[in-house]
C-alpha cells in the first residue's frame, strides 16, 4: 500500500469520533423515532465502519486503485445477496 504515514492527531481524532458515535447510537436507540430507529442505527454503524476503513485501514491513502476496487466488489456482492434474498422474503405476503 502507500508510504503515507498519518499523524497521531488524526488517529486520536478518529478514535474519539468512533467512541462518540458509539455513545450517539446508544442514545438514539432509546429515542422513539418510529420506523427510523433501525435506519439511524445502521447509518451510524456504516459511518463508523467508513471511518475505520478509510483512516485506520489507510484506504484513503492507498497508492493503487486495486484496494478500492476490491472493497467496492465486496460491497456490491453483499448487496446482491441481501437485495435478491429480501426481494423474495419481503414480498411473500403480497397478494
Amino acid at each position, binding site marked *: 500500500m502507500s508510504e503515507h504515514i498519518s499523524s*497521531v492527531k488524526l488517529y486520536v481524532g478518529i478514535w474519539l469520533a468512533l467512541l462518540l458515535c458509539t455513545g450517539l447510537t446508544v442514545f438514539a436507540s432509546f429515542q422513539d423515532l418510529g420506523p427510523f430507529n433501525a435506519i439511524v442505527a445502521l447509518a451510524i454503524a456504516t459511518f463508523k465502519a467508513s471511518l475505520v476503513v478509510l483512516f*485506520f485501514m489507510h484506504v484513503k491513502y492507498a497508492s493503487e486503485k486495486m484496494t478500492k476496487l476490491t472493497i467496492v466488489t465486496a460491497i456490491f456482492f453483499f448487496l446482491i445477496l441481501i437485495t435478491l434474498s429480501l426481494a423474495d422474503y419481503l414480498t411473500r405476503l403480497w397478494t
Partner: protein
Amino acid sequence: MPSSEAAVANQAHDPALLHHFTTAQQQKDAASFGMWVFLVTEVMFFGGMFCAYLIYRYWYFGDFGAASRTLDIRLGTINTAVLICSSFTVAMAVRSAQTGKRNAIVVLLLLTIVLGLVFLGIKGVEYKAKFDEHHIPGQADFHLAGSVPLHPDIPVNQAHAQMYFSLYFAMTGMHALHMIIGVGLFSFLTYEAWKGRYSPSYYTPIENGGLYWHFVDIIWIYLFPLFYLIERHR
C-alpha cells in the same frame, strides 16, 4: 545491467525482498491485495449470517425485539468501546512500524492483546448470564418470559425467540473466534517485533494483521446495533 544481476543485487541489498518480486513496493502491494481479497471472502462469510438475521428479524419481528431486550446493553456498550480502543492501538502499532519504533510496536500490540482478552472476558460474562437465564437455544428448559413489545396480550413465541438466540450465539461466537485467532496472530507478531524483525522498509505482517483486526472491529460495529439496540425505544 541484466535483470538477473539486478535481482541478485536487490537480494543482497534487502533480505526481506523475495526474488520473484522486482521491488519492495511491488511485493508489498501484492501482499496487501492478497489480504484484501481474503477480507472479501470474510465479508461473504459473515454476509450470509447477516442475511439470515435480516430475514428472521423481518419474520419474527416482535419476538426478536423481546429477546433483544434481555441482552446487557451496558456490557455491550463497554465492549464496543473496548474494541474501538483496540483498533486504535493497532493503528498506532502500524504507525510505529512505519516510523521504526520497535518498543512502541511491542507495547501497542501487547495493549491490543490485553484489550482483545478484556472483550472476550466480558463476552464470557454475557454468555454465562444467558446460560443462567435459560436463554440457550435447544435447551430443554429454554424460556423467555414476557410478551411481544406493544402487544402485552401476545406472549413471546419460544421457537422464534430461540431463533434470535441461535443467530446471536452463531454470529457473536464466530466474531469471538475471529478475535481469538487475532489474539494468537498478534502474540506471534509481538514476538517477531520484539526480535526486531520489522523496519520501516518491511512491516507487511503488522499491516496485514492490523487490516484483519480492523475488519473484525467492523463486524462488531454492525453486530452491536443489530443485536443490542433494536428494541430499546419502547
